């Protein structure tokens, strides 16, 4: 069960990291610069924060996979 949940979490993380990267990359294009601060800052900050929040989840998933089972 742990491995299934960890696998699903990893897939979810990969999706979030990809979305975060695309948000960040596109926020820096000329098209978004001309749309103004608010419309540019949403994908820019959102992309960075999404990627940052993926890191602790990845750490916990690795810990979950490697941790020894303890009695519940």
């Amino acid at each position, binding site marked *: 069960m*742990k491995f299934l949940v960890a696998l699903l*979490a990893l897939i979810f993380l990969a999706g*979030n990291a990809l979305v975060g990267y*695309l948000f960040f990359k596109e926020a820096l294009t000329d098209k978004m610069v001309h749309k103004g601060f608010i419309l540019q800052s*949403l994908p820019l900050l959102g992309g960075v924060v*999404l990627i940052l929040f993926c890191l602790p989840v990845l750490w916990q998933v690795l810990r979950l996979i490697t941790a020894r089972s*303890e009695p519940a």
Partner: protein
Amino acid sequence: MRHIAIAAIAIALLLIGLIVSLVEANANQPWGQTLLDNFMLARSLPFTLGLGVALGYARANWPRRAVERRTGAARRFDASTIWLHWIGTVAVLLGLATGAWQYLKGLLDVSSPIAMPLVYRVHYIAASLLMFVIALTITEWWLRGSGGLGIPKGGWIRSLRGLAHELPRPLGGTLAYMLGLDLRRAPPPTEKFTWYERSISYPTWVIAIGLIALTGILKAMRYIYPIPGDVLYWVSAIHVGAMVLLAIKVLDHLRYVLAPSRWPLMGAMISGWVSARYAAARHPGWHVTDEPTPDAASAATPVRPVGGRPA
């Protein structure tokens, strides 16, 4: 009996509303599928919310069964909390995926490999599911006088002190310094829900879901009740911001529940139960008085000793 009748009427009204909308949609209308779906969503929302309120009323007035007892286990979640949690999870994940897809399509300015009307349709179904869960949960908790995971009146300082002890030392110390909390005092024992869950996790869920629901309703209604362009601009910007906030919340929730020390709590969101040994060790303020508690020698060491590293 009245609660069953009200729930049945709400279901019948929802069905009638959907049938009327479908009949009108099948008439000779010039609209495309996405606009039709938008109308369907906007028209069905009052019925969906009404169904949620009616079922919440029915749940709150349902005759309560005697509290089930299990040797060596403690009840953490009711059955209704579990299924509402998982329906809400499906709604949030579907809504996030389809919402991000729509936003990315516009951002990247590319054609979608999946038909966009289908993406919008799934988004609207997810929105309806979420509205239903919100209406049901608020009604049931309100009528039962349950505060959910909220902080009781006058309990904020105690909660924040508990939170400061639970957080990693640099964060907890900073919080305590800023709020003038005395960390030398023993932390308040963790109750059924941790101080982090009650003072950070739950309130931010309420904010993120509230924002996305309110702005989503306004966006859905814009073809029925004209909304000024400036207002719609801000509503759309807040809806996207709430989407990012909700994605962050899901990630933070995963970080919290996937920690090996909290794995039994993950199981509790499926079975509803957690072992009394775990409850006594990690939630000492949770009075599981009818359960045998482990003796001091065999009890597991608390995961998060005062001033220790977080689990």
